[in-house]
């Protein structure tokens, strides 16, 4: 008899576990896993978004060929990569810098923390619109400041309608809005570093730079990883600010992958094409995640 007890107990435990998992699992399956496979299926058809009087057909890999031979897709991909490769290091290092600045004990440091994190609390649509006001051409705040500090030598620029300036402008704005997030994560990481390490090193005669380089940076390893991965994923989703401010222009210079999918699938109703682009998008994200994972692993060894 006693041997059955654990078995039935295990049974109860297992049933309880599945019961508690059920809501989350059901939702995840319906709203992530199913759409995920649906994307694969749809990418092989000529499905249109809204009803039409002709049946949907299998079209094989036609949509993939179309996406991969579409210069607009490659441009969107390039833009997204460029955005990500800029945003990730810049936002991370500024975030770390800010965290270092305000990690010290001094009067009013919580006020500065509060202010530095403030933009992150403002939703992106609103940030984009505020910046649209700042970036007005020729009569906007930023052009105004540039004009005054340069004695009329610089500008005015039409920031968002200039082929070479539009993307950097979007990057700058995104950094302003997003950097508080990295700052917070680094701040927590910094607070986990034992103070004794610094004291010991200082006794050994290490200067500030050495403290940073040999203690702070290496001990933030886990934090770097978290920041790297979350920032990359966030950067890859670039859409809102572009849609509100430039609709991908000028000349497609700010078009992003997500916007490419949105335009293809929603505005042009080409569900098949959008699904193919989504699958490619997903594979790219997966590849990047695996790369980062791999880098982190080898780094460990």
């Amino acid at each position, binding site marked *: 008899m006693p041997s059955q007890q654990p078995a039935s107990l295990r049974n109860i*435990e*297992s049933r309880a576990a599945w019961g508690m*998992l059920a809501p989350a699992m059901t939702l995840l399956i319906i709203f992530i896993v199913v*759409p995920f496979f649906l994307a694969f299926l749809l990418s092989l058809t000529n499905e249109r978004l809204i009803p039409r009087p002709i049946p949907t057909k299998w079209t094989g890999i036609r949509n993939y060929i179309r996406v991969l031979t579409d210069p607009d897709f490659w441009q969107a991909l390039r833009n997204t990569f460029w955005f990500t490769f800029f945003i990730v290091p810049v936002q991370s290092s500024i975030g770390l810098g800010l965290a270092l600045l305000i990690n010290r004990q001094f009067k009013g440091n919580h006020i500065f923390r509060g202010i530095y994190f403030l933009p992150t609390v*403002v939703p992106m649509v609103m940030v984009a*619109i*505020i910046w649209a006001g700042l970036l007005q051409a020729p009569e906007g705040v930023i052009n105004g400041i540039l004009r005054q500090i340069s004695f009329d030598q610089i500008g005015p620029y039409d920031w968002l309608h200039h082929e070479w300036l539009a993307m950097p402008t979007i990057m700058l704005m995104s950094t302003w809005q997003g950097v508080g997030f990295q700052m917070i994560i680094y701040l927590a990481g910094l607070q986990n570093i034992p103070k004794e390490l610094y004291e010991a090193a200082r006794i050994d005669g290490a200067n500030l730079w050495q403290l940073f380089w040999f203690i702070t940076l290496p001990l933030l390893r886990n934090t770097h990883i978290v920041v790297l991965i979350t920032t990359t994923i966030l950067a890859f989703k670039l859409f809102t600010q572009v849609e509100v401010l430039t609709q991908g222009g000028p000349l497609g210079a700010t078009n992003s992958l997500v916007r490419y999918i949105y335009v293809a699938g929603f505005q042009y109703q080409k569900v098949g094409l959008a699904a193919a682009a989504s699958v490619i998008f997903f594979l790219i994200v997966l590849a990047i995640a695996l790369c980062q994972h791999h880098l982190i692993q080898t780094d460990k060894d």
Partner: protein
Amino acid sequence: MSKIIHGTYYLLLIIIAFLMLIPLIVMFSTSVKSDEFLILKDLGSMAAFWPGVPEWENYQQILGDPNMPFLRFLLNTLIIVFSIVFLGIGVNSMAAYALSRLKFRGKGLIIATVIALIIIPVESLVIPLLLLVNRLGWIDSYHVQIIPFIAHPFSIFLFYQFFNKIPKSLDDAAKVDGADFLQIYWRIILPMSLPVIVTVAILQGLEFWNSFLWPLMVTRGIEYRPISVALAQFFGRDPKVWGDIMAFTTLASLPLLVVYFVFQRWFIQSAIGSSIKG
């Protein structure tokens, strides 16, 4: 530390703070100017930072426009975000509890799957998701903006990590007292999890307060449209009236800013960071 270093340190802090605040100052200052010609003139100079004698006409206009019922949009956003956060905390923490505490077959696989799902951006799934919710007849409703986003792999992961750190001995003690798993989860684990609950609430809350692409596709009229989409459309109207636009923007960011200043400690002090940093 010498006085000079100390001074430059503060100066640096203040300059950065100013950079962070400029756009918000301009937003507010512009929103309380009623003369559009003056606004356009001011925007090009330092006067953009100065509200002058505040006039509230733009606000009256925004709040009185029947075609753009600001309060309705705000209410929609609040309903959506609160539902997601509230239901999300329940659903995700319960799943995380099972994954962290209970023994069952297939657990490893599920944990791995949840972690893998974290990297799938919702944005890559919007088109099939749109077809799916349309089949369910959900388009243009609150629930189409809520239900798909309750279960959240990253939140599950955060809960899971946090629960793993709570000593098992607590559960065992409760078991001896005859508590079942649900009771342990409800009476012992959850009350100890305030930091991670706050973190998840803030992260998921901010994420969906920000949400734009999805509501853009699934809402049409005023009834269920959240403030982000309404604002973007207001902004898209020509000709642009900056006074009204900035008043709308100020009003739209106000609720979050108030919440932020009241609960600032929670947002900034290690709560978020310590749960995320892994």
